[in-house]
């Protein structure tokens, strides 16, 4: 694996002269995301999805006879490196990008892609401002935060009806954005959360926070963020005998949550799109990924898979790899992908991404909540 990618990388570097991918026999798709650094695990998910999709395409005759090749570019989720990576991708003559992962990397990189006429689909960046700039060539295969935030708030005020709510977030773009949406929606519904507070992402000790929640007599906690921190909060809550109903966004829906928190996961609520790896239509894809000894459960695996699918079916339909023509086609049509039907609006966002409320279980599974 490693070897093959470093080889493709060298090949890409030497193939500088090839400007348009259309003349080439292989279509190169750049995969930009963190391969090193603290968030490398999310970059891995993206890589798993993209390579699985590419392997599938190649095994079935490629796109219009062209072989597809994934080239990995590591931005370490550092905005500065993301700019360097974007420029390098353009240098290497690659016109199609899946990535970047962190919104803070996607933002500066998308400016460059738009200007240079490179098609980009991010499978993980949920920040609204990326598509707000009115770019033509920037797309996502992941829903916006606002959708699940309002769903969560509706569910809290309509179904759970807790007395004292705390909204906690991880001070990151994703988590804080969601938590703010939920809080605002709750206030609109006439419920004032008793606490709205951030924690430090990467922190391990939440005992002070839990004591604070206990003191505030909170019976419902909404957490905006990812699974590592929530897992520890749940685990330490159980140790301290703090019992409240927890709820989180799709970022917590991950088999690792149950590994970290164990029994404490039982009954935690989460808003999530239909879980792609559980979808019977994806059984074959899941099996193919598992066969390679990789994990198909990460939240970004199938959005990344779908990003490649969208590109592939567009190229097949219009028989051109020109990004501008592709973007026009993508906005006008809908696609049947691993994450369901994908349809874009003018901005490049998914028009429909259906989130459901799930109840998580200690064995890592989930069921639809009542």
């Amino acid at each position, binding site marked *: 694996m490693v070897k093959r990618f470093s080889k493709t990388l060298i090949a890409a570097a030497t193939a500088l002269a090839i400007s348009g991918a259309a003349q080439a026999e292989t279509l190169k798709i750049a995969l930009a995301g963190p391969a090193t650094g603290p968030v*490398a*695990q999310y970059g891995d998910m993206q890589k798993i999805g993209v390579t699985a999709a590419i392997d599938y395409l190649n095994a079935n005759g490629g796109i219009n006879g062209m072989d597809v090749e994934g080239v990995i570019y590591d931005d370490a989720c550092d905005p500065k490196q993301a700019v360097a990576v974007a420029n390098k991708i353009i240098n290497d003559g690659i016109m199609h990008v899946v990535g970047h992962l962190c919104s803070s990397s996607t933002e500066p990189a998308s400016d460059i892609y738009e200007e240079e006429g490179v098609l980009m689909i991010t499978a993980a960046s949920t920040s609204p401002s990326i598509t707000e700039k009115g770019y033509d060539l920037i797309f996502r295969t992941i829903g916006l935060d606002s959708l699940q935030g309002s769903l969560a708030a509706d569910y809290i005020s309509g179904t759970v009806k807790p007395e004292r709510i705390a909204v906690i977030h991880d*001070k990151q773009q994703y988590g804080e954005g969601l938590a703010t949406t939920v809080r605002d929606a709750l206030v609109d519904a006439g419920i004032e959360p008793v606490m709205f507070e951030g*924690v430090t992402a990467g922190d*391990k*000790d939440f005992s*002070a926070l839990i004591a604070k929640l206990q003191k505030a007599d909170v019976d419902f906690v909404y957490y905006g963020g990812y699974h590592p921190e929530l897992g*520890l909060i749940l685990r330490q809550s159980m140790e301290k005998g703090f019992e409240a109903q927890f709820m989180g966004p799709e970022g917590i829906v991950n088999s690792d949550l149950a*590994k*970290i928190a164990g029994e404490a996961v039982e009954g935690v609520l989460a808003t999530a799109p239909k879980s792609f790896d559980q979808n019977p239509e994806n059984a074959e894809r899941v099996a193919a990924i598992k066969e390679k000894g990789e994990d198909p459960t990460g939240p970004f695996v199938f959005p990344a898979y779908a990003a490649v699918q969208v590109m592939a079916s567009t190229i097949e339909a219009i028989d051109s790899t020109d990004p501008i023509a592709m973007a026009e086609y993508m906005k006008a049509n809908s696609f049947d992908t691993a994450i369901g039907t994908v349809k874009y609006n003018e901005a490049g966002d998914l028009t429909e991404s259906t989130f459901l409320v799930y109840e998580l279980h200690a064995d890592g599974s989930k069921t639809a909540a009542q």
Partner: protein
Amino acid sequence: MTEASLYFLQQIINGLTIGSTYALIAIGYTMVYGIIGMINFAHGEIYMIGSYVAFIVITGLLGMGMVALPVVLFIALVVAMVVASSYGWAIERVAYRPLRGSNRLIALISAIGMSIFLQNYVVLAQGSRDVAMPPLVSGSLVEFGSLETFQVTISWMQLLIWVVTLISMTVLTLFISRSRMGRACRACAEDIGMTNLLGIDTNRIIAMTFVIGAALAAVAGLLLGLYYGVVNPFIGFIAGLKAFTAAVLGGIGSIPGAMLGGLILGVTEALTAAYFPSEYKDVVAFSLLVLILLFRPTGILGKPEVEKV
């Protein structure tokens, strides 16, 4: 007791727990600094490696069907200490010893390079995902206060952290004050050139401080690994930073200072998180450091520096 005081007590307990582990890691910084005057930035990574080794040994032993938890933990502790010490020794040998005698900052940059290297080495060896372990030591020892107001709990795990920290600190203090090696160690901290002239192998003493520091960091690695149940290759950096802050707070070079600094830092963090938004806890911790240094420029227990001409 009123609700407010119970709440305060609980936060103090939480703070002391995290503070004792800071203290364990801080010893490594302070001892190395005390003798060769360099900041060993790779020390946080040693703690991380210790945590990984402990996880591997515990999981392995439990997987082989060993059930006696105290025995498992003890073996894990010993193995983690041995492996972490070897790392400490090897780092000193490879990255610092050849640079001795050149500018202090050279060794500092070498340490930063070593830290980047070790982090990525563990990513490659063990993957970058969080590795989680089910709680092994659970349940609480004391619970008081009433359910209606606020209940103070001290868990077995917290007690274990205190006891192990206390034992390690006592052993270290005895070793430093009573043993031959300990005396040589103190002599080195006083004047390394003179100690060398007196026929003590200072290279050996320096290597030994790295080994002791690493072993204590491994103890912290095991304890925090059990407490949180999670380890990933990036925990070393922030823990190292905090422990280093603790060491400076207490007066770098002073072993009791490192212990005190760790506890103060832990309690400050817990109390900040208790009464202010918890995202500001690091700001308060660093501000406290700046303030203390302004009034006591060599830390709480540090010796005032004498300017010699």
